[in-house]
C-alpha cells in the first residue's frame, strides 16, 4: 500500500517536472503542426493519469529487505559506480578483480571463494576479451608503463 502510494507520488512529481520542462522548451523557427512539445506533453499527461490510479488503488506492499541488506545493496551500488570511474584510468585488470571479488562476497560472504572469483574473472575475462574476441582493452594503468 504505502510503497505504491510513494511510487505514485514520485511519478506524479516527475511527470509534472517533465511537463513543465516540455512547456519551457525553446522552439525553433522550423516547426510542424505538432511541434516538439506536443508528444512529450501527451506522455506526461498519460503518466500523470496512470500514477493517480496507482495512488488511489495501490497494490499490496512487496517484501522489502531489512536495513542490513539495503546497506549491502548500497555498498554494491557504490562499488559498481567506483568501478565505472576506475575502468579508464586504472585499466581493466585491477578494478575488475576488486569489483568482481566484492560482488561475489556480497552474494555469498566467504573470503576465499570471493578472492578466487575476483582474480579468476579478471584474468579470464581479460584473456577472453583481449585475445579471444580482439577487443581493445587496456590491461594495466598506463602510468606503470608510462
Amino acid at each position: 500500500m504505502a510503497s505504491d502510494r510513494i511510487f505514485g507520488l514520485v511519478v506524479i512529481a516527475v511527470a509534472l517536472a517533465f511537463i513543465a520542462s516540455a512547456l519551457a522548451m525553446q522552439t525553433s523557427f522550423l516547426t510542424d503542426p505538432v511541434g516538439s512539445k506536443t508528444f512529450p506533453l501527451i506522455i506526461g499527461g498519460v503518466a500523470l493519469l496512470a500514477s493517480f490510479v496507482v495512488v488511489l488503488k495501490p497494490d499490496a506492499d512487496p517484501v522489502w529487505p531489512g536495513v542490513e541488506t539495503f546497506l549491502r545493496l548500497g555498498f554494491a551500488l557504490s562499488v559498481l559506480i567506483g568501478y565505472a570511474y576506475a575502468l579508464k584510468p586504472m585499466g581493466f585488470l585491477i578494478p575488475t578483480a576488486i569489483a568482481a571479488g566484492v560482488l561475489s562476497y556480497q552474494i555469498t560472504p566467504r573470503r576465499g571463494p570471493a578472492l578466487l572469483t575476483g582474480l579468476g574473472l579478471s584474468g579470464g575475462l581479460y584473456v577472453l576479451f583481449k585475445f579471444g574476441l580482439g577487443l581493445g582493452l587496456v590491461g594495466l594503468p598506463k602510468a606503470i608503463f608510462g
Partner: protein
Amino acid sequence: MELLSNLGLGFSVALTPLSLFLAVVGCFMGTIIGALPGLGPSNGVAILIPLSFSLGLDATSALVLLTSVYYGAMYGGRISSILLNIPGDEPALMTTLDGYPMAKAGRAGDALVLSGVASFVGGFFATIGLMVLAPLLARAAYFFGPSEYFALYLLAFTTLGGITSKNQAKALIAACIGLGIAMIGLDNTTGMPRFTFGNLHLMDGVDFLVAIVGLFAIAEVFFFIESHGLNSAIGVKVDKVTIPLRDIIKSGWTMARSTVIGFLAGVLPGAGASLGSFMAYAAEKSIAGPSGSFGKGDPRGIAAPEAGNNAAAAGALVPMLTLGVPGSGTTAVLLALLMTLNITPGPTLFADKPEVVWGLIASLFIANVVLLIMNVPMVKIFVKILSVPAWVLLPGVTMISFVGIYSLTGSYFDLLLMIAFGAAGYFLRKLEVPTVPIIMGILLGGHMEDSLRRSMVISGGDWTHLFNSSISIGLWVAAIGGLVAPLFLRRLVKRPVPHAMDLED
C-alpha cells in the same frame, strides 16, 4: 515456388561455415543462459549485443548468432524448471508445474528429453509458420501510413500492459517512462535539444542498449545480493537419459495443438512467449479433463508449455520483422539489435534485404536442429553447467555487461547510466512495475512521435486524420480493447502461478 527460392537464398547465406559456427556457439550459449536461473533470453541477448557489435560481425552473422542465443535460451529455460523447480525464465514457468514432479518421481531424464522434443516441434513448425505468414503480413504492411503506424505502436503498448501485466496503470507508467526517456536528446524534426538539461552527454539521447543491459542484467545482480544467491542447488538427480518414446507419441497431439496456440499468441503484439506457454498449458489441461494427472507430473503438462513457448518465440518474430513492433521483451531486444545494425524492420526489409530476412529464417531452422541434438543426447553437459554457483556467475555477468557497454561507447557516463538503470530496475521490479514497456518505449518512442508528426503534416494539423482509414480505426479499437478487456477477463481466468516470478521473457 517463390517461397522455396527465397528459402534457398536463406540457406545459401546460413550454411556458410562462419554462420554455422556462430549458430552452434549461439545455441550452446543460449541454452546455458536460459538454463541458469535469473538469466533469461532478454538479458542473455542484451549483454551479448554490445559484444557482437564490437566484434565487428556483419548484420547477418550478428543476427544468426543472437537469434540462436534467443532460441537456445527458450530451450534452456526448461532445464532449471525441471531440475530446480525454478524457471530459468518466465516462459518456462509453466514447465515447473509438471516437470518438477516428474523429476522428483525419478524421471528427470525422461522429462528433459520429452521437453526437448516438444521444444523442437514447437520451434520448428512455428518457424514454418513464420516463413509463410511474415511475407504476407509484410505485403499488407504496405498499406500502413504514419497514422496506422501510430495506432499500431499504441496497440503494442496497451496489449503489453493489458495482457501480460497484473496492473495496467503500472504498465502504462512504465511505457511513459520509456517514451519519456526516448524524448531526451535532439529533436529529429527541428534539431532542438530536449530534456538534456545542458548536459552534453545527453545530446545524443539515451542509448537503448545501455538501458536494456542495466534493466535486465545489472538489476539481476541486486536481486541476487538480496537473496544471497540461494535457490541454486539441484534438488533431483539425473541418472540416465533415455528416450521416452511412449510419452512422446502420447503427447503428439498435445504438441501439435500447443504449437498452433503458442504461435498465435506470439504473433499478437505485446503478448509473447509467456502467454503462449500459459495458454497452451491451460488448453491441454482442460482437454485432458479429469483423466490427466496435470500438476503431478503428466507428460502432456511438460510437452504443452514447451511446444507453446518455443512456438511463440518464433511467432513473436512475425510482427517484429514485418512491422517493426516487437511482441515480447526479447524481441524488443532483437529489435534493438537490428536498429544497432542500421536495419529498419518493416515491409521494406523483405524487399530490400531479402538475404537478411531469409538468412535469419534459415538459421532459425538450423538452430532448431542443432538445439535438438544439443538438448537430447547432450543434456547432461548443461545439467553440470547449472551447478555454477551464483557467486561466480553474477559477478561474471556484471563484468561482461560493463565491458560490453564500455567497448561500445568508451564513456564512463554510459556506465553510470547503466548502473542507474540497474538500480531503477531493482526498485521497479520490486514494485511489480514491468520493465519491458520501458524498453519498448525507449526503442519505439522516436518512431511513434515521428509517425504522429508526419501524419499531422499530411493532414495539415487535423487530428481526425489519425482515424481516417479502417485499418487505423481497427487498431485503435484493438488497442483500447487490449487495455480494458483484461480487467473483465481477469476474473474468469486465474493464472496458476507457483512462484512469485517477475522475470521477463
